[in-house]
């Protein structure tokens, strides 16, 4: 297999001929005057681990519920595996969902919970028992099979909910904040387990989360949502390194923003005259007309100390260290350039033990970044 073909297999969204597994076409959901989902279109491919990421109220849960059939869209169409399921009720969709609250049936044992969906499709008893055992083994909860949900810990319940939603071998698994109720340590372990499980079973996962770290760790692609619309769909790396707009840049990770206007545009680079009077040369995805207002975005870890500061230097700033947040592995420095401006953040890895570090409070520093690690964003 050549490199291009391999890339198409791993990243089907790159392949113009690939048929999407889930096709969301101009979907709108209105609750009264509120547009929870607003004219949204999206393609999700077979075998993806797709995350819908956004703050609460951005419409991500409503979108997921429409995929499950628990809400019906006001307008637009929805296709799963080529079939129009827009009006298909939830019990007839080839889709299962893991609920945020897990929604385990409290009057049934673990085993009965997992078996529930199989009973509905009238699977023969022997086959059913085999499938239940397989699921319980897969999620390592076989010893708990006779317990009731109220006799389980949060992590165990999460596994039961997952086993129940996987038992029917759905084509598409929807996960609503799958790790939201777990504590931090457990969450980190479970993230990797979910990814392994997804790769092993080959089921397409669509998950909703408000936790960007979780989305970054697990997803093949992420859709950033705001006010019922998608702001950007891309791989975790691309979302972080090449945000398409200011909203996405600010939503994922921390970022330093400098407003200014374009004074020179050449190919994939622009020269920006920032409001603070410093010129900045950064990447741009498309040419800009001269005078266009843009925002220059620089991630804190891309900022470094500058050893050859010049008064007319490009991508160079000078200021005073105002705050230091020591996080162990890294330290975050907040540098005051101008009293009226937000502080510029710089993250430095603590290569030396903390006590020997050069930077300290109220120290004057010069900082810089390279042109290809910053970018110009339009509003």
């Amino acid at each position, binding site marked *: 297999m050549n490199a291009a073909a391999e890339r198409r297999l791993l990243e089907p969204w790159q392949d113009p001929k690939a048929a999407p597994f889930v096709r969301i076409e101009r979907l709108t959901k209105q609750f009264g005057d509120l547009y929870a989902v607003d004219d949204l279109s999206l393609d999700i491919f077979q075998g993806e681990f797709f995350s819908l990421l956004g703050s609460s109220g951005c419409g991500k849960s409503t979108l997921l519920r429409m995929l499950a059939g628990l809400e019906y869209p006001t307008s637009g169409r929805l296709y799963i595996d080529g079939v129009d399921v827009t009006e298909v009720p*939830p019990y007839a969709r080839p889709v*299962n969902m893991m609920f945020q609250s897990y*929604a385990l049936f409290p*009057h049934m044992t673990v085993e009965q919970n997992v078996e*529930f*969906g199989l009973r509905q499709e009238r699977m023969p008893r022997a086959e059913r028992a085999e499938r239940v055992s397989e699921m319980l083994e897969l999620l390592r909860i076989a010893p708990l099979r006779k317990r009731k949900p109220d006799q389980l810990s949060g992590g165990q319940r999460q596994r039961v909910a997952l086993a*129940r939603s996987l038992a029917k071998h759905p084509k598409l698994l929807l996960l609503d904040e799958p790790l939201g109720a777990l504590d931090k340590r457990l969450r980190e372990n479970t993230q990797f387990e979910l990814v392994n499980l997804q790769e092993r079973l080959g089921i397409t996962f669509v998950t909703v989360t408000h936790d960007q770290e979780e989305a970054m760790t697990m997803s093949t692609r992420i859709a950033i949502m705001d006010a019922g619309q998608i702001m950007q769909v891309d791989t975790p790396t691309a979302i972080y390194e090449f945000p398409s707009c200011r909203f996405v840049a600010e939503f994922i990770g921390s970022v330093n923003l400098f407003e200014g206007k374009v004074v020179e545009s050449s190919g994939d680079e622009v020269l920006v005259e920032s409001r603070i009077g410093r010129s900045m040369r950064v990447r741009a995805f498309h040419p800009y007309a001269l005078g266009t207002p843009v925002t220059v975005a620089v991630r804190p870890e891309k900022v470094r100390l500058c050893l050859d500061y010049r008064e007319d230097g490009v991508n160079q700033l000078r200021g005073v260290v105002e705050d230091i947040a020591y996080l162990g592995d890294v330290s975050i420095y907040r540098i005051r350039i101008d009293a009226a401006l937000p502080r510029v953040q710089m993250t430095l890895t603590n290569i030396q033990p903390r006590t020997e570090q050069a930077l300290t409070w109220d120290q004057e520093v010069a900082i810089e970044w390279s042109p290809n690690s910053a970018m110009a964003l339009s509003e």
Partner: protein
Amino acid sequence: MSTASAPLSRDSRLSRFVNIGIPYVWLGIFFLLPLLIVLRISIAEPALAQPPYTALWEWIDQGVLQIHINLQNFILVWEDSIYLDAFLNSLWVALVCTLLCLLLGYPMAYALATSPERWRVPLLMLIILPFWTSFLIRVYAWIGILKPQGLLNHALMGIGLIDEPLAILHTQIAVYIGVVYSYLPFMILPLYANLTRLDPTLLEAAADLGCRPLRAFWRVTLPLSSAGIVAGSMLVFIPVVGEFVIPDLLGGPETLMVGKLLWGEFFGNKDWPLASALAVVLLALLVVPFVLMQRIEQRIEEGSR
């Protein structure tokens, strides 16, 4: 925590004793004591005296105590078929009425629990409102509705459904109607309380797993409301077994119920001991199945663990 392991101070021990003690004292005075008095009367003999029964013990000669225990009342209750029939009929009426209340009350409670929030209080008021009128007057009103020249017969004849009045009043049917009408709220309220607590995501999960709405009702809603069903059924069944007013006002000579007999023995025949014996047997009849049911429930729960 050093305070938790330290022995309780005298004050806190006293307050704990008072806290736990009050309900026991209450039960002792207002439940156990009257029950013991009833038990004691049930083993006496009727007498023309004040009170109208013989003493439990008396001193004869010096230092010889004579205790009178008369089991004749219980033997009579067992041997005279009228009492047994009354017991059986009371249980039957209570059973039928409980089932009718459940069949009528469950959909009403379900509708209440699933109605929009702003409708719930007014709808609930409609269920509770009749309680503001005296129970006796409401049952009396049914005579006006059910009698041969009453509202119901007039209406049915008016629309030409029947040619001559139906004889409903003073039959067991009238008792069923009266009991179901009077006790329906006692079924609805616990069921409503139970159903409003049901997590709607469970039904979504059922639908997501391929379960149609009706099946989801049988497999999820109904089992999860079993506590409400049991509570409502108890609240209807137990008082109906001993019900006196409704069979007396609406029932006929053939509606034999323990409540009516009890009343007759107490106030008609002035046979307190026999009436007490009936009351004791009634209590035993109700308590034994209740305890058995609780045992079974407990065993089921333990078995599932």
